[in-house]
């Protein structure tokens, strides 16, 4: 029989992890349980000791600090939707509404979404476009790294044995966030491709001060588009259209949802649509 730990404090959780780094970490369970079901279908139930972090004090809070926002790793998609956050988070909020269905949004956590490191993680592109960082704590240590550094590959992160993701740090930035997801049905759908961006645009002139754009589900890890971002900076929003070259770094695959050629073309179209949204929301400031 496997053991089940449900500590109330971060200290206790880190101590447990320090003693046994192979603990299976459970938060909202929305990835862990389906994976267990999939494993059980052809093999059997996995018997691993579990560290349930859902009751760790304070780890679900979304807090405004002097220079940044701190999103507790246990914040659910619903928490993000309901939080009072500046417009630069709008992309993340739209992504939260597009995750699974309400049942998943009520349970799935932002920390879990990043740690699961699916190439199609809905949280990755918006967080990357927010320049978000991940806080990984272990006994006596805390490492902070950008989200796109943290996610190393398909289902692979740089989380070290004994570490726990405790939160996500989002620098305070002006501008507005956007998000677009493409799937073959309306709800409960894994993305074929998705894009998210944050745009800081001068109100009067429409000049882009800065843009950060990330594409998901078209590479092992969601990718920023630095070429395009650089081309956009200093131009009027709407004047520059993305090109295939801007997205050349993507490495989409063929799978049951779509083929690579399509993903590449769709990503380009979604980026263009995202720029259109940014231009439209600039013309109609909220």
């Amino acid at each position, binding site marked *: *029989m*496997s053991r*089940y730990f*449900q500590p109330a404090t971060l200290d206790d959780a880190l101590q447990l992890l320090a003693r046994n780094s192979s603990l299976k970490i*459970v938060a*909202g*369970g*929305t990835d862990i*349980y*389906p994976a267990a*079901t*999939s494993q*059980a*279908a*052809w*093999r*059997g*139930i996995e*018997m691993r000791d*579990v560290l*349930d972090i*859902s*009751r760790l004090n304070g780890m679900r809070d979304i807090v405004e600090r002097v220079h940044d926002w701190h999103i507790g790793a246990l914040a659910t998609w*619903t928490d993000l939707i309901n939080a009072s956050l500046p417009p630069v988070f709008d992309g993340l909020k739209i992504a939260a*509404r597009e995750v*699974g*269905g*309400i*049942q*998943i949004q*009520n*349970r799935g956590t932002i920390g879990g979404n990043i740690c699961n490191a699916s190439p199609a993680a809905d949280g990755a592109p918006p967080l990357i476009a927010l320049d978000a960082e991940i806080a990984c704590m272990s006994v006596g240590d805390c490492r902070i790294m950008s989200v796109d550094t943290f996610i190393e590959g398909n289902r692979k992160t740089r989380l070290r044995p004994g570490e726990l993701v405790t939160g996500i740090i989002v620098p305070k930035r002006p501008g507005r966030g956007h998000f677009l997801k*493409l799937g*073959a*049905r*309306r*709800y*409960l*759908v*894994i993305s*074929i491709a998705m894009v998210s961006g944050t745009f800081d645009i001068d109100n009067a002139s429409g000049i882009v001060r800065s843009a950060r754009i990330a594409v998901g589900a078209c590479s092992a890890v969601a990718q920023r588009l630095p070429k395009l971002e650089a081309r956009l900076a200093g131009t009027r929003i709407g004047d520059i259209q993305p090109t295939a070259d801007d997205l050349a770094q993507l490495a989409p695959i063929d*799978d*049951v*949802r*779509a*083929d690579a*050629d*399509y*993903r590449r*073309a*769709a990503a380009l*179209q*979604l980026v263009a649509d995202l720029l259109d949204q940014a231009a439209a929301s600039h013309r109609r400031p909220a």
Partner: protein
Amino acid sequence: MTVGAVTFTVDGVVELFYAAPGDTLADVLRAGETSRGRNPRKGTKIGCNAGDCGSCTVLLDGEAVCACLVPAAQASGRKVTTIDSWKMWPEMSRLVDAFIAHGAAQCGICTPGMIGAAHGLLTRNGSPSRREIEDAIGGVLCRCTGYIKIVEAIVAAAGDAPIAAAPDTGVGTSAKNQGAAYAAKGYSNFAADAIPQGTLGIRVIRSPHARAAFSFGDLDAFAKQHDLATILTAADVPGANSFGIFPHTKDQPVFAERETRFRAEAVAALVGQNLHAIDLATFPITWTPLSPVTGIDAALAEGAHAIHAHLPDNVLTRGNLRTGDVVRGHADAAATAEGQFETSFVEHAYIEPEAGHAWGERGQVVISACTQSPHMDREDVARVLGLADADVRIAPTACGGGFGGKLDVSVQPILAVALARVGKPVSLTYSRTESMVATTKRHPARITSKASANKDGRLTAYEMSGDFNTGAYASWGPTVANRVPIHAHGPYKVPNVHNRTRAVLTNETPAGAFRGFGVPQSAIANEALMDDLAEKLGLDRWHIRRINALKAGDATASGQVLVASAGLPQCLDALKPTWDKALLDASAHNAGNARHKRGVGIACMWYGCGNTALSNPSEMRISLERDGRVIIWSGAVDIGQGISTILVQIVRETLQIDGADIAVCPLVGDTDATLDAGKTSASRQTFVSGNAARRAAEQLRAKLLRHANVDADTKLAFEHGGQFATLLAGSNGERRVSLADIIPEGFYGFESIGRYDPPTTPLDANGQGIPYATYGFAAQIAEVMVDTALGTTKVLHIHAAHDVGRAINPMLVEGQIHGGIAQGLGLALMEEFVSGKTENLHDYLIPTAGDIPPITTHIIEDPDPEGPFGAKGVGEPALIATAPAILGAIRHATGVTVRKVPVLPHRLWALLQARGT
């Protein structure tokens, strides 16, 4: 096994549950091992165990969650609200009432989850918008209803108006679906719910290879190591190790012998407790993978491996229909169109995975499982056990969706063999993945068709050659091969027809029965060619269908004269104003939009009700009890479509007895308690069993009239009160007869039996004869919006006109139409089962609440003199026209003809690229 304790409030009461902290909340609720004893809460259903279907939705501190994803430890100290407390919460009570009144539940297995999700919404938002409702239920899949009535019910529940179901006053009323009314409260015992505590579990060992030889290692040692009751293999099958639909196609083994023929084929089964903890990778079996035959071409190739030795060419069955001279028909035409079309494996995706349990009782083997065909199950179970049919009893549970997938046995023979071997009650519940990989699918088809018409658009010839991949075993392959040629040219008058089909064996998942038996596939081909002909001849697409539409008095290509009830012209006429308006709307939109293009498509269908040119009788027994209750002992399994309700309405209308209390006995389909009504398939139950019930009721009424010694048209009524009811005859009830005087004491009361077998004739080698007693007809229009840059299609509206003969229950008819359209939309746009890849409900997509457009239904009633009160079937007709109408609309929007479904975005995009947008 006591493994820990978790305390939380469930439905207002604090309970201590004995459970492991990592057990899912769904499992803990359903097991119900509490400090106060066992109290299973089986209103919470499990459809996938992966958060993909939402049927286990409960509220956790007021928030909707999938109970299958919540560790029990996380519920500790919190409040859980399940369907079981529907009476406690005003919003939930109204939701239950509204779901029943609006026909929002069919099979009802998703309903508790649906109501849970809606309850979560209404407690935080008392007047939600339609969009907010869709957001709230988007995480719960329903395969029956098409969601429209669910949204309507939630709107009604959110309002203030009183909610009441329409009363059943006989034929033509929208009386509530009785089974669904039970299910909506979480009361229904679906197959997994019905499994009693303490049965021995079964876990099936399945082949990971499409084709492989295998040999077992030391099974005894493995059994001992894991404390198993036994391990079953082919050697344990006491009778014939084979089952199947037709007497000559019993080709599928319970457990494969030496070699497997498809991925997921059963080779052995573990019997015991706690089986899911066993890692099957350690099971002592050696696989030798062999080269599988994949796809139709490989199967038909020269020298291909024969899937079954007795069929060296891998052709299971051929179908043929020939009339006139197609060569001349094409030669004389002004326009000819041809094309090849392809469809994919499609999964039924009923929300209830197969399950059942078996026990021995009074010398009989009893199997209680979800099924669409109890009497056929009995034959196969008896065969596998080497027993007489009478030694086996099938006691069906509530069925959480079927759509053809539960016409074949699944768990039944395995349960039977296990019971025979261990002699103790046994149970087996398929996981979602097991349900998807091991049971039948819709046949993938490759159809080559050619159609010709004269300059006026009148069809002169139709030629079709269709290959249907029937997978590793016959299942219903012969039915598909025989039914398709009759229907393949569509519901049109065509003088020269030659349609040929083959059911082809491969090393793929067996393809069987799925709503439409191949006709949805062939309709995609023939309706595309109708559009081609219209285009070539410069005719309107509605017009070409209207002038060719079969009507009463016409002869079909089988040589059958349709004497009545061929209502396609009326269906098309009903849609004409919509057609004209939709075309104008589309062109107005398209004039100003380069990227998002609207399109309108139209398709027609016909479908013979009942088996193809085979006897398919139904027998119904009705009893009158001394207290005035009329009980219908129905063998017609209700899989959510509402046949039990339909039978009550037919019997009420036939008996014409005021105050009669009419009900279907809960032992529906029990092979000991009911007569064989035939399978619930082929859109036959309303027509065939409805007729049997009507005949039984006519006899019952006649008997009562004789006892009262009155004329046939005398008014009858029952007066209740006291122990026995009194029959009142005459317009003022002047003649009084106590039922106690005419009904002898006894369990069955006073009974009558009605039998009906549709009048058909065998077909000759050219498919000539009378294959069906009646046909359903329909026309549907789809309006779509295509994003030509992304290749995505949004269906904006479906308009459906269906000739159902007579709508015994308009609400249930509409429910069938909505649900069929939802499945047709899935077939067209998203559904593709790929073995090894789409084995769950997040990789295999079925439509969600957000994917179904508004549906406008036109119920056309062109009564069939043969049908009960004129009625005929609608279950399969509902689905058939949808996909071709959507494909026609995509073509209208974009100019590209889609020849392979599903039209996933990347496929449409590739077509648009090839055309050069």
